[in-house]
């Protein structure tokens, strides 16, 4: 197609979208909804990923010490634990301190504490690993040491977190596919309407010898325009809500780390406009394929 022909083709989608305002709004809204949810899930997943690292590094091993051992034995044990490969820090927690920590945790239920006459807790070490992968080997080595009563660590919690993340990911992907599908259908219905509205023009185009590209492109562009419009609105909504969420949570959930707003802006704009464009192109391609007999 000649470059100068675009002068004739480019205004067509705008005229057509104005003609079917109702359908246009419906199609754009579906794209907005689809892309908004996609954006929210993408942000959720990337934040979970970010925090996964933080949470993993916080994995601790609790080493409970046998009662009634002397200071010498205690020192030997302490040195042995500190000397294990992969250990980042070792903190001694006396039974009194342990009880304090526990009552902090269950702050309101003082009655329970009152019900316990004697302190049931043994003395213990809180061992932090340099990296999550080393936790298991540390647990292994510590349990073989003398005077160790029991070893506890976050068994299963990492696995649980990962399975939760996977669950969120597949839920997100499923929703995106479903919504994407409905967006494509709505766009193709919209394009079908404008094909109907321009039926006689298409007829005349064929009689006078229009190339297929000349007939098809206005509709493809119209779909893309719908998609990009939807993508743009969704992008603004996602960014505004992320900003608001950050403002709300940054001060209260200080133990979590969030992907910063600045890091999000460009990928969100680029990704959502592109995704909208593709949804639109797919929708109009379907409509043109089905309803324009070229």
């Amino acid at each position, binding site marked *: *197609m*000649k470059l*100068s*022909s675009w*002068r*004739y083709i480019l205004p067509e989608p705008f005229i057509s979208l104005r003609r079917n305002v109702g359908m246009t709004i419906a199609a754009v809204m579906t794209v907005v909804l689809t892309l908004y949810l996609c954006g929210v899930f993408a942000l959720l997943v990337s934040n979970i990923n970010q925090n996964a690292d933080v949470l993993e590094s916080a994995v601790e091993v609790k080493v409970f010490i046998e009662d009634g051992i002397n200071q010498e034995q205690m020192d030997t044990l302490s040195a042995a634990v500190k000397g294990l490969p992969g250990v980042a820090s070792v903190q001694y927690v006396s039974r009194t301190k342990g009880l304090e920590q526990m009552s902090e945790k269950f702050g309101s239920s003082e009655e329970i504490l009152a019900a316990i006459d004697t302190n049931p807790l043994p003395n213990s070490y809180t061992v932090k690993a340099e990296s999550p992968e080393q936790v298991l080997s540390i647990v292994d080595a510590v349990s073989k040491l003398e005077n160790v009563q029991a070893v506890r660590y976050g068994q299963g919690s990492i696995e649980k977190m990962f399975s939760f993340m996977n669950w969120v990911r597949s839920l997100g992907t499923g929703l995106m596919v479903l919504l994407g599908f409905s967006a494509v259908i709505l766009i193709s219905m919209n394009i079908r309407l404008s094909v109907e509205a321009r039926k*006689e*023009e298409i*007829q*005349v*185009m*064929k*009689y*006078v*010898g*229009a*190339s*297929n590209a*000349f007939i098809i492109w206005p509709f493809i562009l119209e779909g893309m325009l719908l998609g990009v419009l939807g993508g743009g609105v969704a992008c603004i909504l996602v960014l505004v809500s992320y900003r608001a969420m950050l403002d709300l949570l940054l001060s209260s959930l200080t133990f979590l780390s969030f992907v910063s707003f600045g890091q999000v802006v460009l990928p969100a704009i680029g990704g959502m406009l592109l995704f909208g464009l593709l949804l639109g192109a797919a929708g109009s391609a379907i409509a043109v394929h089905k309803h324009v007999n*070229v």
Partner: protein
Amino acid sequence: MIDMSNVYKTYEGGSLALKDINLHIDNGEFVYLTGQSGAGKSTLIKLLFREVLPDSGQIFIAGRSIIRLNNKETVKLRRNTGVVFQDFRLMENKTVFENVAFALKVLEYPWSEVKEIVPQVLQRLKIADKADAFPRQLSGGEQQRVAFARAVINNPPIILADEPTGNLDPDTSDELMKLFQEFNDEGATVIMATHDKRIVNETRKRVIALRKGEIIGDKVGGWLL
């Protein structure tokens, strides 16, 4: 120029539209296709610009078969063929100028040329003063002139017309016929389906008569039914 051999065409539902059509039309000829409604005139016209395809047989235009054409070749064929219909087929929401300009836009002429060519053609067909009018504001004759302008704007070597005077009164018909004659004189091959006995008798051209899909007569001059 145009050759058809053993062409058969049946529409869905089994009604036979054309049966064993064989004909040759020379470059620059003016040919009437006559016959009653349903004789196959329109189908023959449609075959020539590939609106429909035959069930069997061959159609050659300028030595080339038009049965197996890809999209590009079909487009080229239609660019070399101007078509005029009984019901004009103008776009109601476009002005006269826009209707005619549309054909050039579709053929991807630059706008600067479109602006130049369209007024010239409207002038020649004596509808320049109606350039800004919409089709519904025009008489039948004027509408057909606009349709004619759209068909001939890029000087196609073949002009096909399906009952172009069917909706026009005798005087307006004669005016339109003069236009066909003019373009024929300039070298265009004109093939016109009509059952307007008066026009056919007055102009003494080659007449191909059809009945129930078959050619029942082919000779110069006179009404053959």
